[in-house]
């Protein structure tokens, strides 16, 4: 039996370029108290508890504990690490990847977790009939095939990204096939069953979700008896709850409260730059915003460092240079800051605007509207930009919009393929732990499609597109190669200023000092029991 396994392994190494072999790490925290209840304040109400259909990071707080991911993520390097899959291989041409699962993992209802469940999970998400909002994360996946009870193969679509970007996501949590089919998707969504460290107990809509320890958790005994998630939509109320001890963890903290809690005993403030990106963008489909000189003049009209500081006071947001957040590999802040970013220079900006007016690129009586969502931070940034443009001779006003009309405007329509109604807008994006999730969706030609895409600038750079495609299909998914390609693409793109990079959020959580071994992650997940930690509370 052992010989057969070794033979299979040897064959797979010969066939495939990369093999990751490592035991799934087991968290250790000697002296931890086993028991007690942890209460977490959540700033939004839960919507879905089935990872296949949820697209909310708040839902992920809960289902992240109820389910296990196929592969984990190193909290320090953000690189994939073994979890349910103890190892995996990627073929040289990147077209397939094979995952070898840990044996003996059980769902909380006693069912074995096998390759059938893994394949079912991903095939269900990618089946258009199921309408999963997470399907776009797996656009690269043709199908997942069961090789044997504990081996599953992912077959990519031709010329598509290797597995890495998609699978390091909370939606890559494995659901039990038989239970899902027996319960139906809607019932499963309301009472999920997973193989994670805590199992679902009850969901009182709007009030709380309760989990309790999964005594059969395969990795380690989770320390907490019970976890309660309480949606508290008003942040001021959440801060009062944290101060009064009604909750142990606040998932969010406004900038104005950071200093107060930092000086308070009993509460720690934990911060990390999140995998988010907020940006001022230009419509590159029509004049004058399709002219790089116009975009540069807008950039030079504004002191972006000062603008970002005035919004966050240096507490809950950090200036962005390029679309890749600082926590991710392929972040190229030094180069982009020193070479691409523009300082405020009103004289130069005004001269450029005047030149464009003389040439007729900026029409007479030109007036522009800066669109943004109903978000106070982005509205403030839009107001700063509009004020500075006014000072340099461009008539500009700010129009915050509800998501519905804003998306209608930015997605465009067949009647208005050039987006005639807008030149400048401010948007944001949160992606997973791979640079692909940012640069591909926001700035490639493939994502400039009327009606759906996320390249709202309609920016197109064939050279950069080719580099990104090369990075996405790098043989063996080699990170160093991919990083170099993404960096080069980003430099080419940002030298043409389709965006003025704005800021990355600093994820800020208030945590009671009774909570131990809690880690904050750039991914905005709250992990209570993972290969690197096992949260416990002092009684």
């Amino acid at each position, binding site marked *: 039996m052992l010989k057969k396994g070794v033979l299979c392994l040897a064959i797979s190494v010969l066939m495939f370029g990369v093999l990751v072999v490592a035991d799934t790490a087991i968290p250790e925290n000697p002296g931890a108290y086993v028991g007690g209840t942890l209460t977490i304040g959540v700033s939004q109400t839960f919507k879905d508890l089935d990872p296949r259909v949820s697209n909310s990071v708040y839902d992920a707080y809960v289902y992240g504990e109820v389910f296990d991911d196929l592969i984990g993520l190193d909290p320090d390097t953000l690189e994939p690490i073994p979890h349910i899959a103890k190892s995996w291989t990627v073929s040289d041409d990147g077209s397939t990847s094979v995952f070898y699962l840990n044996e003996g993992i059980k769902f909380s209802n006693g069912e074995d977790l096998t390759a059938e469940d893994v394949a079912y999970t991903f095939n269900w998400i990618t089946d258009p*009939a199921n309408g999963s909002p997470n399907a776009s994360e797996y656009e690269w996946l043709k199908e997942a095939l069961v090789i044997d009870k504990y081996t599953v193969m992912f077959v990519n679509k031709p010329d598509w990204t290797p597995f890495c970007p998609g699978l390091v996501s909370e939606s890559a949590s494995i659901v039990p096939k038989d239970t899902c089919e027996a319960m139906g998707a809607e019932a499963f969504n309301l009472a999920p069953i997973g193989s994670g460290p805590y199992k679902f107990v009850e969901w009182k809509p*709007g009030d709380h979700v309760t989990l309790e320890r999964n005594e059969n958790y395969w990795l380690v005994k989770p320390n907490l008896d019970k976890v309660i998630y*309480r949606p508290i*939509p*008003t942040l001021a109320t959440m801060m009062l709850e944290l101060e009064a001890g009604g909750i142990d963890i606040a998932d969010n903290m406004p900038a104005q409260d950071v200093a107060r809690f930092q000086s308070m005993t009993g509460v720690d403030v934990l911060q990390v730059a999140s995998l988010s990106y907020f940006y001022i963008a230009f419509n590159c489909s029509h004049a004058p915003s399709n002219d790089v000189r116009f975009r540069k003049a807008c950039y030079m009209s504004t002191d972006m460092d000062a603008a970002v500081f005035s919004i966050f006071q240096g507490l809950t947001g950090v200036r962005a240079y390029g679309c890749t957040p600082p926590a991710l590999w392929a972040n190229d802040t030094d180069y982009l800051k020193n070479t691409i970013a523009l300082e405020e220079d009103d004289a130069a900006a005004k001269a450029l605007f005047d030149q464009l007016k003389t040439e007729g690129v900026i029409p007479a009586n030109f007036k522009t509207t800066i669109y943004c969502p109903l978000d106070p931070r982005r509205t403030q940034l839009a107001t700063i930009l509009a004020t500075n443009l006014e000072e340099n001779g461009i008539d500009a006003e700010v129009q915050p919009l509800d*998501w*519905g009309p804003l*998306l209608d405007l930015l997605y465009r329509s067949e009647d208005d393929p050039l987006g005639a109604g807008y030149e400048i807008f401010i948007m944001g994006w949160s992606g997973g732990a791979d640079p692909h999730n940012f640069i591909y969706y926001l700035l490639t030609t493939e994502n400039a499609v009327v009606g*759906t895409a*996320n390249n709202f600038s309609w920016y197109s750079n064939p050279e950069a597109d080719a580099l990104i495609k090369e990075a996405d299909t790098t043989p063996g998914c080699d990170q160093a190669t991919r990083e170099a390609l993404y960096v080069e693409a980003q430099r080419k793109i940002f030298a043409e200023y389709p965006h003025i990079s704005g800021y990355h959020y600093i994820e800020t959580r208030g945590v009671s000092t009774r909570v131990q071994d809690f880690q904050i992650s750039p991914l905005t997940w709250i992990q209570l029991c993972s290969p690197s930690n096992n949260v416990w509370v002092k009684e």
Partner: protein
Amino acid sequence: MFGYAIRRMIQLAFVLFGLTVVLFVLLKAMPGDPARVMAGLGATPATIEAIRVKLGFYKPLHVQYWRLIGGLCNGQLQAMTYHKPVWTVIIERLPATVELGAAGMLLALLVSIPAGLLSAIYRNSPLDYAVTTTALMGISIPVFWLALMLMLVFGVILHVLPVSGRGATLWGWSFLTIDGLRHLIIPAVALSSVQMAMNARLTRASMLEVMRQEYIDTARAKGLTERVVLIKHAFRNALAPVVTNVGLQVGALFAGAVLTETTTAWPGIGRLMYESIIRRDQAVVFGLALFMGACYMVSYLLVDIMYAYIDPRITYD
């Protein structure tokens, strides 16, 4: 009286029908594609399309309208983002709001009517000034701010009440448990503050008006005690406008509940309305608006019927 009630019920059905039409037109007139908002950024065209088809957006408007109405009537209309029938979603949250509204109304009546009464009896006294000044503050202070201040004082500084949430429940009701009852106090005080203030001012004004009437002088001249004059003759007559106002406030409590429930993390239908608007769940917004509209109408009807009992001069047949 019975015939009057029947006539009003028939009228109510027509008004409800009109309300459904107005609500449907308003929902359809709202800018933006709800399917896109529900699907979120990054959703594939297939996902957005699947939501549109599921919601029946490609069907003619009148078909969509009757689908909504039919679904609400037979209880099968699904709340897209809650994965349950709309009525189930509303009924799950309703006890929390009924409980909060009833506690708020009870508190408002228990405090405001005696306060208004005493204020009128001791007109221009320090007590009168205290009541009128407090009432003015009650009307002026925003509900959400008052709730936050109550949480700060009683939850954080004094540690005598929980800050937010609903706490423990028994058979779905908070007031049946000590923990639930403690959770109820801050939201109920915040919600009732405006009603309390308005009722106190109205009771005072109404009492003063009645006490100027000649029949009050006649009662006194007959040698009745001041207590009998005030309570039996003045107060009962002064109560009619107050009852009208209280009836109208039943509906207003639902509107106030949106703010109070959101601020105090109270899981009622006020917060459900807020969440459903944000999520663009048109079916839930439609159902809730209709439900709240029906509550307004029924409370108006009950007020009209109660008039006949409070004021013998009023008859309907």
